[in-house]
C-alpha cells in the first residue's frame, strides 16, 4: 500500500527544513461513533522517527492528544544535497509506515 506520509524537505545552506504530514485518525478512544453510539477505539501513532542518512535526528513519542493527521516540522544542520531523509512511525495497534526522500 502506498505510504500515507507526505514530506517536503528544503535545503538552505546546510540546514534542511523538513515538513511532514502523516495521515492517521489519531482516535482518542473517547469519541462516539455517530452511527452506532459505540466508542471508537483508541488508535494513534505512538512513535515517530526521522533519520538523516540512517542516523536518528528526531524521535518523537506522541499521545492521542496530537491532532488527527499529525503535522510535524523541524530543521536539521549539516545537511547537503543527496542526503536521505526517512520518516517512519508505529502506532498503538502495531501498524507502521515509512517514507524516504532525498534532499535536492
Amino acid at each position, binding site marked *: 500500500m502506498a505510504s500515507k506520509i507526505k514530506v517536503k524537505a528544503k535545503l538552505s545552506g546546510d540546514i534542511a527544513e523538513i515538513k511532514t504530514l502523516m495521515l492517521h485518525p489519531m482516535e482518542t478512544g473517547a469519541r462516539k461513533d455517530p452511527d452506532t453510539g459505540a466508542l471508537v477505539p483508541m488508535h494513534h501513532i505512538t512513535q515517530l522517527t526521522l533519520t538523516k542518512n540512517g*542516523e536518528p*535526528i528526531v*524521535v518523537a*513519542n506522541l499521545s*492521542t*492528544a496530537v491532532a488527527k493527521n499529525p503535522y*510535524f516540522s*523541524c530543521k*536539521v544542520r549539516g545537511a547537503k544535497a543527496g542526503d536521505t531523509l526517512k520518516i517512519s512511525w508505529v502506532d498503538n495497534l502495531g501498524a507502521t509506515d515509512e517514507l524516504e526522500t532525498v534532499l535536492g
Partner: protein
Amino acid sequence: MHAGRRLVLKGGIALAALVSFPRILLAAAWPDKAFSSTTAGQAMIDLLGTDQTTPSDQIRLKVPEIAENGAVVPVTISTSLENVESISIVVENNPRPLVATFEISPETLPDISSRIKMGETSDVMAVVKTDAGIFSTSKQVKVTIGGCGG
C-alpha cells in the same frame, strides 16, 4: 578484595567515558506512565524525573490566543538555549496533560512545530530539557470548541 574494588572503579570510569561521548539518539521506549498521568506535575515526574522547571524567556512558544477548533491547535516551540535534548508539550487542563515529547539529535535545531488537541481553555507549557537542566514557558490558549472528542 582490593582487586575487586579496582575492577569496579575501572568499570565506572569506562562507563563515565561512554556517557561523555557525543549524545547518540536512541529510540526511547514510549513513556506509557507519563502519557497516562492525569496531572501535569505527575506527567513531568514520570517523564523527566521532576516537576520542577526553570522558567525561561529563551523559549519561544507560539500558540494561538484563541483556538476556534480545539481539535487542531498549532504549536511551534523554538529556543536559543543550547544543547537541547528534548522538547515536550504539556496541556495543563487536558485529561492527560502530556501531549508529546520530541527527542532531538545535537544537529537538529531546537525548533519544532506540530498540531495538538485541547479539551478546553488551558495553559500550554513548552518544556525544554538541556544538558543544563529543565526549562519551561507557558501561555494560555482559549478554546471555544473542545477537541478531545467527548
